């Protein structure tokens, strides 16, 4: 059970049961859809970006605990970040969940570090982040994890 507890930390259960920033916010000016065809997870990311700064971030969708918690934690972490900072955060997050070695300080997002022991679940954790990238680039085609 030790690995499982590492993956499914209390913070993840909390965000899965009570996702933060869930819904479509007013004034959103960027959005993108993401889809993981392997497990059916769907997410839509909404952003309000002003002068290169993410003022608001929210999401809608349905998915497993890892993808829901990841989207929820991501929207919390994004508020107030510049687009460049958000991209760097994604890089650091990606390095953490893929176990790529040393990664930047990620604060609360570190609770998802246990994913590195479950390679099949990396896509669950990164779906929201890939969708964020698409939203920052202006949206358009839905992104998929495949």
């Amino acid at each position: 059970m030790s690995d499982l507890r590492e993956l499914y930390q209390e913070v993840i259960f909390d965000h899965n049961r009570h996702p933060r920033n869930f819904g479509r916010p007013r004034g959103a000016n960027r959005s993108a859809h993401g889809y993981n065809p392997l497990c059916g997870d769907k997410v839509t990311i909404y952003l309000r970006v002003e002068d290169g700064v993410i003022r608001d971030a929210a999401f809608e969708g349905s998915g497993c605990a890892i993808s829901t918690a990841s989207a929820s934690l991501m929207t919390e972490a994004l508020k107030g970040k510049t687009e460049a900072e958000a991209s760097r955060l994604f890089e650091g997050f990606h390095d953490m969940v893929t176990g790529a070695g040393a990664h930047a300080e990620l604060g609360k997002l570190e609770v998802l570090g246990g994913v590195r022991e479950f390679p099949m679940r990396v896509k669950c954790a990164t779906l929201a982040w890939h969708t964020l990238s698409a939203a920052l680039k202006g949206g358009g085609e839905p992104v998929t994890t495949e």
Partner: protein
Amino acid sequence: MSAVSEVALAPQEPAYDVERVRAEFPILAEKVHGKPLVYLDNAATTQKPRAVIDALRGYYEHTNANIHRGVHVLSQRATEAYEGTRERVRRFLNAASAREIVFTRGTTEAINLVAQSYGRSRLKAGDEILISALEHHSNIVPWQLLCEQVGAVLRVVPIGDAGELLFEDYEKVLGPRTRLVALAHVSNALGTVLPVRRAIELAHAHGVPVLLDGAQAAAHQPVDVRALECDFYAFSGHKIYGPTGIGVLYGRRGLLEAMPPYQGGGDMIRTVTFEKSTWADIPHKFEAGTPNIAGTIGLGAALEFVERIGLEAIAAHEAGLLEYASGRAAEVPGLRIVGTAPEKAGILSFVLEGIHPHDIGTILDTQGVAVRAGHHCAMPVMQRFHVPATARASFALYNTRAEVDALIAAIDKAKELFG
């Protein structure tokens, strides 16, 4: 004590010795996350008995050569083993002739072969192909490709809330424009056994040929293509304890003979000139290129293994497991079984309240229990039941009630973890 009562007290010979069957599968001794492997993903692929592993090794150590053209000893051996397997498949399906057995890469390729050869040469704009709402993507997409090519229309017969084929709708959809019916014999996502004999009878009354996707059936119940009177039957080797990359298309002789080749290349020709080539007779007309010889021989060993145990005994064993598992699953609060048709094969698809199937899959895996979590290549089925995915336990001849208990214990663990 009288002799009579002694006989009555003597332990009965078990009808089906699952432990002896298990001993033939080396991989079942594996440990996963420190726990004994409980392999319940048999609808995805089955494990291989030692007989199949030995046949593959034996082929490469003593036989390996190309077939049909060598004059040397190894080529003769390889050809005999390859064509011998064709005859074994004929017996297995009770086909009239070994010429009606075409080796393919699997069920998917077999269906694509029929779509592109039979379908493309015969169907025209406005013609209809009839499938059911519970098909695997491999019995949907080949027909969609064909429809795009020739302007035909795909008609889908709906299923009921239990995952059963709505036969009255089938009768209605089957019409004067129907040119082909393509149905699963057994649903991979729900376990439903379709009423294929009746469906074929009705289609034939309209003069419409029927293809059966037997991927989930061939390893779990006897299949007799002449009793079914089906026109095409497809199955995969790897789902019947054989290797991956080998499958079978059965086709009625008259149909196969009239069909154009599927792929061009070596082994499928009679003569080749730059002006015109002529084709080999069936089945070789459909087997262009050097085939999967080792895989074919491995399939032969798998069928021999299955026949030794007996499909009726296997079906009875798996029916018992399904009944036991369904009963135990029904006792789990918050668990809903998806697919409850009266006629079912050994597949238990389910969802748990508050726990996504993908999370179930990961947690079960840490307990050594391998199940499939996802849409099972049947996205329309998931949409029909308004679920993004399900967790699926699927049984094979080597599974036990103790393994069902391990599955239920792992589900309890998932519920405990998720609170």
